[in-house]
Each structure stands twice: as C-alpha cells, then as structure tokens.
C-alpha cells in the first residue's frame, strides 16, 4: 500500500511539469498586453519599462526556466495586473474561500444526497422515492447559473432568509454551497439508490434475511458498505465538476474566490496569476485523485489485489 502511495505521489512531478509547460506555451500564444487595461494605448517608454521589470523581454526559455524554478521554490512571482500583490498573496487570500466553498458543497452533497438515496432505495416506489428522483433530475438538468439566480431571487431576496451575495457570515455561505452542491447531491442520490437496489437483490442479502438477521443490521453491515463504493468513485469526477462549477457560483454570488480570479486573469493576461492558479488546481486534482484511490483501496479489498 505504501509503495503504491509513494509511486502515485512521485507521479505528480511529471504531471506538474507537463502542466507548467502546456500553460506556458498557451499563454505565450494568447497574445495581448497585460499592461493595457483601457482603450488608452500604453506609451512606448512605459511598456518597455514594465516588460523589463517583469522579465518579459527575456527569451522564452529563460522565462520558462525562471518560472519552473519559481514553482519549486514556492515563489510564483508578482501579479502583472494587481500590482500590489504577488501570486502567492493572491492564492493565499482567495484559494481558501474556494476550497471552503467546494468543501461545503461536497458536504451538502454527501449529507443530503447519500442518505436520500439510501432511504429512497429502502422505500422503493413510495412518494419519497418519486420525489427524490424528481429533485435529483432537476439538480442534474438545469444549468447551475439558472438555479443559482432563482435561489437568490427567492430565498435571499423575496424571503430574506440569507444575504444575496458575499462569503462572510455563516448565513452567506449556505446558499452558494448549496447551489454548487446540487448536482453532486443529485448524482450521489441516484448512484446510491441504484447501487443499493442492486445490492438488496443479491443472494447474500437474501441469505442474511433468511437467517433471521434484523433489517437494520443487514443494511449497515452488508449493504451500505458495498453500495457506497460507486459513490466514492464518483467523488473524483464530481470534484472536477465542483472546481469548474465554482467559477460560476463565485461570479454570481460575488465570492472572492480563486475561480473568479482566474477567469479575469486570463482576460487581463496576468500570466503569472494564470500559471499559478493552473498549477495549483492541478496539484489539488492530483491529490484528490490520490485520496480517492486510497479510500477505494481501503473500502474494496478486491481491487487491492488487482493493484500491483
């Protein structure tokens, strides 16, 4: 097991190098001038001064080398556009909010989604089951920015239950994380329900019932554990969704997270911020995949042997 973990961690290095390289190439291709904010042209002298200051007048391989060195010494450079901050500052100030948002979203999804799926499976074909399927389909199908807009309109504005935007008080965190967590919630609910329904039909469950074990004990000990496995494997792709979905939620709810910052950085050509955030996101994804694989290995002994 440890060998497996170490090997996976070592793999992050080539992945990171690949990410840096690709991002670097793409940003070079993208053109544009990070120092030009408005329609007003930047005077030549100033343009030259700034390029010199930020090493943009060096040949590309020098810039690349400087950047790679920066990544491995954890110094991601200054921001070209937010002139009083470094990329490290920006990440330090904004990333925690996005991580928090994603975490709470996943929490909503797990806390509401999984039990809902379990209950729906147990109360198969009841009103609850139908209701659940209905809501999960909605959560799936309607684009999140529309759902978020409606939620703000009704819950925050009309009913005045929570603030309409921001990420400050605990009340303000409810709606955005819920909106982001809707799709994963729906996903979990359906997955768990389907998987439980299947497991409940299995022979070993029938045997347990025949032996006279209580329903609850059966569920907890046998059914639940096996049914949760597909849910766990779904966490990784759902994490991807949460990362991309957070951009939208951050814009709509005015949350000063890293997603929103990223989109504006690409538009304003803040190269160092773009690189920094991309590298960071990559690390997060790789680590998340690692954690999921480990969890999976623990939960499902079958795959442990298969992994050599």
């Amino acid at each position: 097991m440890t060998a497996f973990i170490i090997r996976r961690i070592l793999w992050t290095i080539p992945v990171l190098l690949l990410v840096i390289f690709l991002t670097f190439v793409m940003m070079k291709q993208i053109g544009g001038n990070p120092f030009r904010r408005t329609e007003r042209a930047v005077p030549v002298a100033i343009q030259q001064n700034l390029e010199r200051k930020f090493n943009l007048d060096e040949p590309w391989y020098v810039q690349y080398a400087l950047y790679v060195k920066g990544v491995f010494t954890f110094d991601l450079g200054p921001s070209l556009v937010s002139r009083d901050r470094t990329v490290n500052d920006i990440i330090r100030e904004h990333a925690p909010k996005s991580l928090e948002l994603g975490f709470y979203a996943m929490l909503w999804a797990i806390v509401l989604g999984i039990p809902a799926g379990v209950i729906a499976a147990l109360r198969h074909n009841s009103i609850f089951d139908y209701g659940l399927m209905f809501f999960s389909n909605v959560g799936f199908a309607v684009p999140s920015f529309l759902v978020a807009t409606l939620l703000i309109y009704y819950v925050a504005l009309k009913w005045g239950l929570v603030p309409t935007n921001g990420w400050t008080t605990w009340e303000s965190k409810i709606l955005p994380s819920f909106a982001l967590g809707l799709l994963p919630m729906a996903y979990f609910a359906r997955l768990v329900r389907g998987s439980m329904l299947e497991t409940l039909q299995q022979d070993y469950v029938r045997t347990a019932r025949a032996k006279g074990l209580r329903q609850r004990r059966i569920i907890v000990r046998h059914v639940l554990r096996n049914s949760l496995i597909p849910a766990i494997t779904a966490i990784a792709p759902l994490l991807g969704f949460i990362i991309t979905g957070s951009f939208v939620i951050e814009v709509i709810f005015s949350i000063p997270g890293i997603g929103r910052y990223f989109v504006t950085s690409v538009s304003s050509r803040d190269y160092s911020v773009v690189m920094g955030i991309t590298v960071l996101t990559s690390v997060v994804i790789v680590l998340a995949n690692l954690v999921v694989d480990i969890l999976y290995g623990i939960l499902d002994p079958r795959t442990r042997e298969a992994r050599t």
Partner: protein
Amino acid sequence: MSTTDPRDAVVAEPAVPEVVAGAGAHAGAPMARASLWRDAWRRYLQNKGAVIAGAIFLLIVLFCLIWPIISPHDANKVDLTQARQGPSLEHPLGTDAFGRDMLTRVALAGRISLAIGLGATVAILVFGVIYGSTAGFFGGRLDNIQMRLLDALYGLPYLPFAIILLAIIGTINMWTMILALSIASWFTAARIVRGQIITLKQNDYVRAAQALGARWYRILSRHLLPNTLGVLIIAMFLELPGVILGEAFLGFIGLGISPPDASLGSMAEEGRSEYRANPHIMFVPGLAIAILVLCANFIADGMRDALDPRTRETKEG
C-alpha cells in the same frame, strides 16, 4: 496490471454481449449481434420512461431541424419595435430583446447546441476509441505507458485550458466549441473502451481468430469494436448532457457562440439579466436545456437497462 480500474466501475458495465448472445458467442460475432440488438430493443421498449424520453428527444430534434425552415419569422431579423413581448399568438414564446421570435430562435439555437453536443460526443468517442482500443488490445508496455499518460492528463485542470484555448482561438464558433468541449472529456471514454476490449479479448472467438492468422485490425474492427458499440452508445448519451451543460457554462463566463448565432447556453446567459422583467427570455432556453438533458439521461438509463440483463430482476413491471 489492473484490469478493473475502480473508476471504470461507475459507468462501464461488464461484458454484456457475451452473456446475452448465448449460443451465438462461439460462432463468432455477427450472429450474436443480431439477437443482441433485437433483444435489447425489445427490452428498451418495455421501459416506458425511456420510450417517452426517446420520443420527446426525437420530437425536439425534428422540431429544431424543421421549424426554422417553415417558420414565418426570420430568427435573426432585428425589429426593435417588437422587443421583449410576452407569449402571443404571433409569437408563441414571445420575443427577445431584439424583437426576434423566441420559438424560432430556440429552434435554431437547439440545432447548434445539438450539433455541438453531437460533435463533441463523437469527437470524444473517436479519441476514446482510438486511444482505448490500442491500449487494451496491444496491452503490455504500450498499455502501461498510455495509462500512465492518461493519469497525467487527468491531472490537467480542464477549465483553465478550455478558457485559454478559446482565448487563443479568438472567435468562437461551433467547431471551436466542439474542440474545447471534447478536449479534456475523452479520458473516461478511453478508459471504458480499454476496459471492454481487455475483457472481450479473452474470449474464445478472439483467440480462434488470432489462431487462424487474422490481422489485428481485422480482429478489432470485426469482432471487438462492434461489441463495444452498446457501451459506446450508452456513453454517448451520458456525455451529451455534460456537453450541453458545459457549453451553457462557457457561455456564461463569456465564451459563448459569437452573434448573431446563438446556442441554448448563450441564450440562457443573455436571458439571465432579463429575467426580472421578462422571465420568459431566460426560462425558454433554460427549460430547453433541462428537457434535453433529462431526455438524454433517461435514454441512457433505458439503454443501459436494455443491454444489461442483470438489472432485469430489479425491474418492476
């Protein structure tokens, strides 16, 4: 080398054709194919939800294809005097901010969204099939390298690259959208195909074909790939919602289709700022997206149930 990657378990079903085809399996693929599809089709029809979804989907597709041709309104004609009208006899779904007929525009936008959806899905499948089948079939070293590379690619953050890619390309039309949407989504398809091929590879008929001296491309094309077709079709209908929503999402952050063309996603995004005074401008495309996505989900589930006999026992009615 692991043959069952846990991440495949979610979407991929085990070797379906074998179990169902029964006697046909030993004689070679073609016979299995015929009874497989007929059986599956029959079972699909028994699933009322899937049938209705399929019908709705088909209706929507037909509507999107035909309506713009027969509609009395020109979807791109700007008539500012008619702007923002609610539903009426002349404009069943009202007009948008430019006075353009919503019904016709939705049909056209539906065309583009469906085309993007289809295009991206096909692209995903093509990449996935090429990558996955070579990895699965040849196995060994090549498979190892390919899978490690895939692991690395999984680590790439999709959205940043899509955004940067679109920014590089500059104008955004149907083709660039297809490219951007498919470029990071083909990994799962590749995995599924690989999984399938590996399982199927171990069948007797494949070994027989190899023993008889058939070339690898013949084996792939005649025996292995057709049997993955079922799984691929399911995967396609499962990808479609993601692509449609992905396109809506890109539209939201400002990377939507350039005007005057519109996709459902860009219409929904434009509608968002209008919805307080004219909610229909947002709801019409939003509902359209939701219905398409729902139908695709139902169809995919229906097909999966149809092709996988195990779930037959848990089916009711």
